[in-house]
């Protein structure tokens, strides 16, 4: 007795969702999440290891940034958002 299968079952190229696009998108999301976790784990490890004048990087990250850095960061943030979601406006 072999495993009963539906005519649509394809063990090599599974399609669980409504369209192959959806299956591919979930795969991409999992890949991104995994890589994000890798980056977080790496960063956390770095923060544990790095000290400046005896203060751990983990603490330094929480300290106040000077105002010029803050405005540079704000510019970068806006650019970042536009790079990723700017395409919406072009629809």
């Amino acid at each position, binding site marked *: *007795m*072999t*495993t*009963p*299968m*539906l005519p649509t*079952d394809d*063990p090599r190229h*599974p399609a*669980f*969702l409504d369209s192959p696009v959806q*299956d591919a998108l*979930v*795969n991409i999301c*999992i*890949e991104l*999440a*995994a*890589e994000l*976790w*890798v980056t977080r*784990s*790496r960063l*956390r*490890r770095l923060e*544990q290891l790095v000290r400046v004048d005896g203060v751990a990087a983990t603490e330094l990250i929480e300290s106040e940034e000077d105002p010029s850095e803050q405005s540079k960061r704000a510019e970068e943030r806006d650019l970042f958002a536009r790079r990723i979601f700017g395409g919406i406006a072009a629809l």
Partner: protein
Amino acid sequence: MTTSSSPATKSAYAACHDDAAYVDFMVGLRRLALGEIKNAAVAASEAELARRGEPIRDVLDLRRLLDPVPVIALRNRVVRSVQEKTWRRVADTVHGRASELLAEIAEAERRGPGSVHCDPQLTYPEYYTVEDIHLQPGSYYGDPLAGAITEYGGNVFYAGLNLDGQVKQASVGHVPLPADGVVTRVLDLACSIGQSTTAFKQRFPDARVTGIDIAAPMVRYAHRRAIKLGVDVEFRQESAAALSFPDAAFDLVYCNILFHEVPRDVAERVVTEAHRVLRPGGVFVVVDFANRPAHGPMDWGDYHRNVDCIYNGEPFASAFVYSDFTTLLESVFPVVDPDHHLDPGGIRLMRVCTR
């Protein structure tokens, strides 16, 4: 679910931090899939079945009913993706350490404690090569580093709880002794990387413990692993369906999760061989899935089994689950305890046969 640890640095298995962290993420996602997501899928399946009213007796009708349910469809997708991505990264990182690992395996082969013996004449049977079991690339035999890949990837499969073989060790802890209490010779059938085999030696330090598996990369890696643990066990590459040992040579024969991976005729030969190599009063202990009624009212368990067989490289598990395996054991052994112990997840059942 019991907590598993999440290593921040590279583990003993990965080539670098990033590989270890990637695989560790898959442990986390699999824990979610086997926990909350599974619970939601089971609840959805119960709701669908209740809405339908009439019981379902054909697994394909069940598939047609449950496949489109969003949480179930997405659960199937996630489980498959985790499996594929885990094996890919595990194989990559193990291959990244290939020269070091292969040298260790070769070096271990020449020394003890314990020993390993491979059979260059052995050809793998046809059933064994039809599919990559559990989607593992190259299955148990096709990659010289299959042992390391099985050990590291298998831990993800066990949701992070088996890195040092703890799941296998727990099962071995439930194995009952023969009535006379004598355990001097133990045989572990289809021992894979020897996690149960070493657990037997740790439980019965005075016994002579042998593990056999049909795959050369498994027994080679098993020996290297046993040496690292300092455990004195013997490994041999041979088929459980045609053992090299004389009659009545063992007090205890153990077989953990082989039977659902082989066709029925092979299972029959393995049971007969286990009986032959046991001494009178010896026990044959089998851990594997419970059987289900073939045409009983079906539920999530039947759905999961079907999807898992098709999408997780289990060509024979469906036939096994809907078979009368206990009857097979009873046809060979005079005394069979069909449900000696059920593991906490309710998946693996221990059956005990006395010769």
